[in-house]
């Protein structure tokens, strides 16, 4: 009997701890969403703690019309989409090559990619700036996208390589006997088979590009900035300073796509993160 009450007490303490931390995580986000849905006058009155009397979407409208967040938003979507597609193509090619084909210096190349994950970014972004400027790629979408592709490359190649290593070889052999070339084998057989790996690569890199700030600040110029920089600029505008609710609306717009994708694809994301951690 005593044993049982002891156990219940123990579990209650643990659950209280967990739930209180979970609440501190969720509460600010709910508060942000809640505040973004009310007019500023109401927000000033109740500090955003009461539910809105009526749902107001004016903040979202003014973020796009006056705050010009739409352009940043489109930029971000463009960068994310192009970068992720490029990473998937380039890294699945390389991962397949390293896993299955034979050529000189293969292992060296693979370890070089792995070693690159150890180089910290602060040691690399200054020369990148000068080199891009020299190449005329500063302030261009191409320069930023290529740099972001490079950032995601190492981990993606590793993920594809380890995935291809686990696949049985029969399929490719029968393809080769049928006279299928290496590139066609990759495109028609191996790449479709690697869907689970592609899932992890896509989500992991999409989040990475969506959240990137430093390289965007270093490489891009005024009109080309992605949403993260746009948020910083917007937060200093007169509109966001005087009406906090518009800032909350802008933050919600940035956070919502990530949260939705995250809740749908949670398993893939966590897989990618743990994979990335164990390599390093």
């Amino acid at each position, binding site marked *: 009997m005593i044993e049982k009450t002891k156990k219940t007490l123990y579990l209650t303490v643990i659950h209280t701890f*967990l739930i209180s*931390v*979970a609440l*501190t*995580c969720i509460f*600010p986000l709910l*508060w942000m969403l809640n505040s973004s849905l009310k007019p500023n006058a109401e927000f000033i009155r109740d*500090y955003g703690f009461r539910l809105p009397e009526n749902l107001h979407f004016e903040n979202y409208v003014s973020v796009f019309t006056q705050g010009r967040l739409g352009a940043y938003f489109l930029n971000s979507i463009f960068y994310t989409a192009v970068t992720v597609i490029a990473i998937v193509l*380039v890294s699945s*090619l*390389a991962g397949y*090559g*390293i896993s299955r*084909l034979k050529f*000189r210096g*293969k292992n060296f190349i693979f370890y*070089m*990619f792995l070693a690159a994950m*150890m*180089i*910290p970014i*602060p*040691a*690399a*972004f*200054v*020369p990148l*700036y*000068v*080199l891009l400027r*020299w190449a005329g790629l500063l302030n261009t979408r191409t320069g930023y996208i*290529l*740099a972001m*592709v*490079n950032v995601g*490359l190492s981990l993606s190649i590793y993920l594809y390589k380890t995935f291809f290593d686990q696949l049985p070889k029969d399929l490719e052999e029968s393809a080769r006997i049928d006279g299928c070339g*290496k590139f066609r084998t990759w495109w028609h057989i191996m790449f479709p088979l690697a869907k689970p790996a592609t899932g992890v690569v896509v989500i992991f890199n999409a989040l990475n590009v*969506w*959240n990137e*700030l*430093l390289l965007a600040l*270093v490489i891009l110029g005024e009109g080309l900035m992605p949403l*993260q920089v746009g*948020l*910083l600029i917007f*937060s200093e505008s007169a509109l966001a300073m005087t009406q*906090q609710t518009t*800032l*909350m609306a802008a*933050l919600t717009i*940035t956070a919502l796509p*990530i*949260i939705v994708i*995250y809740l749908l694809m949670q398993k893939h*994301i*966590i897989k990618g*993160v*743990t994979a990335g*951690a164990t390599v*390093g």
Partner: protein
Amino acid sequence: MNKKEQLVSFSFVFPALVIFSCFYIIPFFYTFWLSLHEASPINVFDLTFVGTQNFKEAFSPPILAGIAGLFGIILIFFALKNKFKKVKRESLAKTIQVTAIAAGITCLFYAGATLIHILKTSLAFTPDPAWWNSVGRSFYITLWALTFQNCLAFLLALAVDRAVRSGQFYRAVFFMLPILGEVVIGLLLRTILRAHPGILNHMLESVGLSGWIQNWLGRDFALTTLAVSHSYRGFGYGFIILLAGLQTIPEQLYEAARIDGANAFYRFTKITVPMLIPVIFLVIILTILGTVQIIGLPMALTRGGPAGQTTVAVYHIYNELQNNYVGYASSLGLILGFILVVLSFSLLKVSKKINN
């Protein structure tokens, strides 16, 4: 395997290799070159060779002298202990030994001369205190992250592992903040912590804790607020990795210990912790790397202010770059990168040693 076939195979990695060389390898080596130069403020390509000037400026003679002295002592120690025996040819070993002693003495001499010079000029040397202050701030935040954030992550992982085993829900919730991006969290917390409309201060007041009201982003508190905000954003990452580690520990081990009459504390210290050592070190290394590299959070939360109180190392490098001090910025990048690489490698070594 003929040449042509090799070439076709190689073409699979070729695109990756090109991007990688242009954006990683060349910049990496270019940093070393760049760090020995300084650009003119108007044109970045107008480089003048300044030698080790940038490093001297960054390091300030006392620190440089300290490093030289330490290096000299290590060299002489190795030479006297005859650590070069492994070199096969005896004459070569002797030469190396003598050279090492000579180099060691030179280093010590340099250190001594610098120290005397400094004492003479009464410590008037502080070339770039701003840089080392910013590094100090980064490490202050790292300290918070290593203690507060990682302890929280560890406790949460243990709790979830004990009480709810799979913990889908908690995993989803705790990992939400790390993926939301530094800017979003930074701006949200800025709104909550601000002194003027002050959401947190309002909350404190309404629960009767008026005494706790602070200017959280003001001079005294900004850096600690930044550190706590960073920990708040980041603990989910360590939590996920630690939980994954905890769940790989086989249940039978605990069962066996329980049958042998081991109590909970004993099971924790003799099974859980030793099994988790590699994971714990992994989390420590990732925390250090992740924390020293933050820039979005201080930018969003405080803009590096008030009065540069939250300008962390990478932020400082970024500011130098904005001012077109390209050579100096890359020297600072190199120094920071070097510190990080040395730190993480030595931690890896320690982890391996403990494991054996």
